[in-house]
């Protein structure tokens, strides 16, 4: 499948009928959405609502039962990421896509230095010049507010917040156009969350990234996502502009979710 070059007037990713069944159990059912360049989509719902299943299907770690997910690559071709052959999927995941895991240990290599964690992804897309790789690593560490003198330290010596920022730097170094994030602020202290949110929001705006953020934290999506999908028992029950869904929820389940949040 090929097509014209990617422009702003069409979605970057079009998901249709995405379904995952585990025998009689439903992981997610007939999920569909468009994602535009520069847009952050929040997937919210309680544990077991299917939001992580959607992300896992897109990232290729779970094989969907049905559906399509068409993505315009930066080479200008349209691919169904759910049906990509493994080598092509791996290439996509380490260049045009990024995946930020809730636990930074799942997204980092803990046995190599912070700088190597960032540089490794550049090497994976063919960059060979050592000086350039090191400089890119230093630049990205600065962008995510990690001091340059920590570049040779192992991630295990970092705090949770720093590890999460390192994971983000590792993903962004290849200039992906789509980032998948699973509870990116989940394991962090509240004060560290705010800093990470500010950073993520700035990066998304400045780099024109598209992102899908899975979270159960409605305060996080309010500040980060342009648009929301509310999921329950595998299905999308409500969708729309983030502040509209949160301030004027129409579905009974969304109303329950919103009214259950404690405000300090």
């Amino acid at each position, binding site marked *: 499948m090929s097509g014209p070059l990617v422009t702003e007037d069409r979605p970057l990713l079009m998901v249709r009928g995405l379904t995952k069944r585990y025998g009689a159990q439903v992981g997610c059912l007939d999920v569909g959405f468009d994602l535009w360049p520069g847009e952050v989509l929040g997937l919210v719902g309680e544990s077991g609502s299917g939001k992580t299943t959607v992300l896992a299907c897109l990232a290729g770690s779970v094989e969907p039962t049905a559906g399509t997910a068409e993505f315009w690559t930066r080479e200008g071709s349209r691919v169904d990421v759910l049906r990509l052959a493994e080598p092509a999927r791996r290439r996509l995941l380490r260049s045009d896509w990024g995946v930020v895991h809730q636990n930074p240990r799942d997204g980092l290599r803990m046995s190599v230095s912070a700088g190597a964690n960032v540089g490794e992804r550049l090497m994976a897309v063919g960059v060979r010049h050592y000086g350039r790789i090191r400089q890119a690593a230093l630049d990205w560490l600065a962008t995510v507010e990690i001091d340059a003198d920590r570049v040779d330290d192992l991630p295990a010596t970092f705090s949770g917040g720093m590890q999460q920022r390192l994971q983000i730097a590792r993903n962004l170094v290849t200039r992906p156009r789509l980032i998948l994030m699973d509870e990116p602020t989940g394991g962090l202290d509240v004060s560290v969350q705010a800093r990470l949110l500010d950073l993520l929001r700035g990066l998304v705006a400045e780099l024109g990234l598209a992102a899908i953020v899975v979270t159960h934290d409605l305060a996080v999506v309010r500040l980060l996502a342009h648009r929301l999908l509310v999921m329950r028992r595998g299905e999308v029950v409500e969708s729309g502009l983030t502040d*509209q869904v949160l301030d004027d929820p129409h579905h009974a389940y969304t*109303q329950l979710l919103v009214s259950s949040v404690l405000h300090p």
Partner: protein
Amino acid sequence: MTAPALSIRGVTKTFVLHVQGGARLPVLHGVNLDVGAGECVVLADPSGSGKSTLLRSVYGNYKPQSGEILVGHAGGVVEMVSASPRAILEVRRRTLGYVSQFLRVIPRVPVVDVVAEPLRAQGLDREEARDRARAMLGRLRMPERLWGLSPVTFSGGEQQRVSVARVFVARYPVLLLDEPTASLDADARTLVLDLVEEARAQGTAVLATVHDPVGRARIATRTVSLEDMAA
């Protein structure tokens, strides 16, 4: 005759509270209202009569059951009730400014960047956006020592000034003001009313709620009541 900057046609909004036994709260009943460029329409109704609901519906924050809300945007017209989230965000970026009674910001972001943000979204570079933000904060007499701090811990009046500053700095052609002076002292109130009056005189269409009768008299070119507007 040119189309009004904002045209509200038969807007009806009822809240259905599923969590509370399906209670129905009818708030707006077929509201009709036009606001033209250079006009400041003030809604004069008691609390709880739906003024904020109407402003939020225009901003796309609440979704009415029926009716149309037409906003002149980028040489065309966008109907906000049926508009896609992307279209609403675009109208908010360029056309609609909304001063609410609450300021919601990411903790840790300093005031100057909170105020500069709408300009950045409109494509200004960081320094120019900050310069204009500082000028607006200065005009609202926000003490300079606060500009580098996050407004999260500010008093109600200080937060309201930040909220006003970030909307007026962006020079939107249509402004929605929900009690923009409610938490302010007399001096600050005058500064904000001056801004409203100046924007209106330059052709901005303003739809506002202002509790204070002096402030209302100062900015309103027309006062209307939701009760009288119902179809």
